[in-house]
């Protein structure tokens, strides 16, 4: 879901897939990936602040949390799909997954986002634990979510293998 906004807001139009596998093309793709990653960090940062994170206070921690989230989500997408936003939009919709890789991408990304979201829950509690400090709990949540996604994805694919073969007909 977040991915989608990242994609849309970054506003960079992907160039049609030209099959030149020259060195310059690879470099430009790599640079584009870097730009996308940086932009997704900034967009995540914005969304986190809009969700109620402090604006000025502990801004570095917030940005690092955004980088962590981008690592768990955008980086995966970049590695799997390349800097191709249309493909991202396709993958993150109900019938968009065309391979088990797409499915696992969906699951890990969503799990890390949901983990980060759940990580915000213990912050107001009065337990006085060191890990309740912003953004430690959210980072932990995102990490655990990502790990859970890594575990769930193969299991889910295994359970639904019949449906998946049906889908990729």
């Amino acid at each position, binding site marked *: *879901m977040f991915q989608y906004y990242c994609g849309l807001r970054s506003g960079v139009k*992907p160039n049609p897939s030209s099959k030149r596998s020259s060195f310059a093309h690879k470099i430009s793709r790599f640079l584009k990936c870097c730009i996308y990653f940086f932009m997704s960090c900034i967009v995540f940062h914005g969304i986190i602040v809009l969700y*109620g994170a402090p604006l000025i206070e502990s801004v570095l921690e917030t940005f690092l949390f955004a980088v962590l989230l981008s690592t768990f989500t955008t980086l995966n997408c970049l590695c799997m799909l390349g800097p191709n936003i249309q493909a991202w939009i396709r993958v993150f*919709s109900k*019938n968009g997954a065309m391979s088990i890789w797409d499915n696992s991408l969906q699951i890990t990304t969503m799990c890390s986002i949901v983990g980060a979201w759940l990580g*915000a829950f213990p912050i107001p509690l009065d337990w006085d634990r060191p890990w309740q400090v912003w953004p430690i709990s959210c980072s932990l949540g995102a990490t655990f979510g990502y790990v859970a996604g890594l575990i769930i994805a193969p299991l889910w694919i295994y359970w639904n293998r019949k449906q998946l073969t049906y889908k990729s007909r």
Partner: protein
Amino acid sequence: MGDDTWDGLFPKMFSRSYFFPSFNVKDLHTVDNGILQHLYTTVDGGDWDLLIAHFLGVDHCGHKHGPDHPEMAKKLTQMNEMISSLVDHLENDTLLLVAGDHGMTDTGDHGGDSEKEVNAALFVYSKTPLFRAGPPEEPETVPQVNLVPTLALLLGVPIPYSSIGEVMADLFEGDGDAVTAALSQLAAYHVNAKQVDRFLDSYALAAQDLPGDRLQQLKELFTAAAEEHAQLLAQVQEGLLASPELEAQLGRLRGHFQRYLREARAVCTASWARFHPFRMVAGCALIAASCLLCYVASELANALDFYHHCFYSLFGGLLAAALLGWARVDLDPVLVVSWVAAASQLGFFWHWWSQRPRRIHRASVRPPVASMGLWQRLRAWLGPALPLGILALRCGAMFSDSFVIAESRVVPFLLASLAMLWVGKLHWDGQLSTPSDAPKQPPGSLSCHKESWPLLGLLAALLVCLRLSSLFHQCRDEVPYCQPSPCLAPLSSLRSPQAKNLCYLLCVASLVGLVYAVRRWLRHYGNLNSTSPLVLFVRWGFPLTAFCIACYWAVTSGTEDTLGKLQELVQVALVAFPRAVYGLVAAGLLLVLWKPVTVFAQDNRATAGPIVTPYQGAPSSEADLLHVISQIYRRMQESLNSRLEGGSRWAAVAAYGLGSVYSAALVITLTLLGFFLLLLHSERMSLSFLLLFLEAFVLLRLHVSAMSLAGEAEPFVVPWNAVIAWVLATAQFFYSTGHQPIFPTIHWNAAFVGFHEDHATHLVPALLVAANTFASHILFAVGCPLLLLWPFLCETPGSRRKRLKKDPQDEEQEPLMEMRLREAPERFSAMLLQLGLKYLFVLGMQLLACVCTAMILRRHLMVWKVFAPKFLFEALGFVVSYVCLLLGISLVLRVDCAVSAWYRQLEPR
């Protein structure tokens, strides 16, 4: 002398009195100066036993300016001087007691139970030395109840019967040696303990709520101590004991008495908070059943047999009332009402249940429906499950005191999550991107839907609104390092004149923005063209109201000293401007009720043109009118067609603003209410109100574009997403208008907007304070029918045309907008009912969670501080929302009647 509350509490008890009005918080000096005028002469006169001087300036200054204001420093210096000069006037045998009845929070308020509010200073002074060995370094904290027995014994009167305080032993030492001092202390303790024992005895006879075993223990403790005391006295009289031994015994005995008195107080405080578990459970069950009823009824509202259900529930209720009346049970009215409610619900559910089997039977006739797979059923459930899950989270958050304390941040978080989920689910279902035919096309062919960009823009706007609204939060005293929003303080508390002017301009700008936005909106939909009184009011009355509010702010934001000579004029203006606003708002609301139709009709039937298009003859040349969506009422035209035989001559009535006639009335009402509520808040809160209207607008637009993207076949049904987002926004703006569900943060100042002197009754101030506290509840509940109306309003000509293409007979493809509602009046009222029921269900679930919390956690440490106030605020908010929802719906129905009348009036011409 001083506070006139004493006169109210003890009328005609004082031999001489000088009382001054105490209720006006803004008045810092009347009471204090009045006291100072009479204090010294009275003290010097010497014809008194007890003199009470109740100063109020410090308390009022705390409420008005807060503890860290230069005014407070002035006030405290004045009090200090008063005490030091009073000391010089005292006789040798006079005791001076200076006590505060409460402390204050960092904002200068009180009424809660935080350390800062509960603790107050106690200063005891006498010219004869009180302490034999100098005053203690760290004086112990004295419970306030201890003042009663101490003062009573010092004055030589009996301790009041029901006091459970303990004497302050330090004041009974006298000026003898150690043994005599201890003996006189013991005598005081003995009297005190006897009094408490007597009270406990007679109390235990009258009421059974004190635990028997504890009472027995206390009794034994008292008897033992009393016997020991008697023995000791006898021994002292006989002179049997040596001094050190005696002192040790006296000290031990004193400890016994102290223990007895403290334990007695502990027993009483522990058991005087009593609960009725059965009634609690029954009340919870009743609320839960009501919520279930709302849910079931909202599902049933489509069905036509809804009136049967109503009939059965009415029947059940009447039956129960009749039964109770017949049995002549003498019960609380509360109990009677709840029995009747339970019976009526039973009637409803019984009828519903008896209808159920038939429906299942009917379903089994059609096998495809029955054999719907588990997966598909889950899918069908998933739609409402997401928003209801958010609602469940919100209700669950009420069970933790930390979450209740942090609720001002929890609610926006949940609302943002809900909006994200809403949009995300649309994308997940593939409704944001145009479907491509073959799934294996190259990925580049997938393009975004045209409407998805505005949708994302709306989402971003909503998130920004949510974030900005957190700038206006008030603080709870549980949260350390929390700074209340500077916007909450009145402008008069700003010291730098430049900042004050800037803020003032900002407030006025937000007011102007609000007026401009509303007028712009009305103009866009063509509701500002007619010459009906309501439209004239919108044109001229709105700016006038805004002007009055701005003037009022200008007057209040000045400091007291600067306008020396104009003081009287200012006093008049302080009253006149708010009353003018009240009057204008009331006039506007009456106009809305009287003639809510803001339609400008132009009758073209007289002209002989062959085909008169609605656009011909637009009433003014304004550029905006190019957008004006003119309306032709279809039925009208058909009837005219049939009347004018041949079809060669067409005639039409061009009506401007007919498509938005319902929403226009609601928007005007909301703006009027907004003015009224704005006035009750401090000046800078107007920014928050602007944000409120903006966010409501964004939510409505989000709701509409989500609906149109989802391709809802049924525009009448408001999805759960929208209703829950609406309720969450209500809660969010409760906090963002500077409120918290605790008593110290109630804005009592609101009671004095437009009323400078005391109120004759308590009704007006109560209403004003309630309107201030539940401002967002009022606005959102009245605006609730907009959720149903808005999708019709935003129906663009293009989208309709697409759908109407199949229908070649429709020549003019004007969007019908809200007139679509009139085509199906049955469905309209049913859907209005359904929307109301959904709204009530969501509110009721929140209330239920609060009630359950207060019930389950009734022995929790935080119950009086967090859960009980939260419950009270939520319950009151529910009542306010309920009433306002009914008012909003009835306003829509009133408009409906007026529109029908308008058609009837049009027809015979």
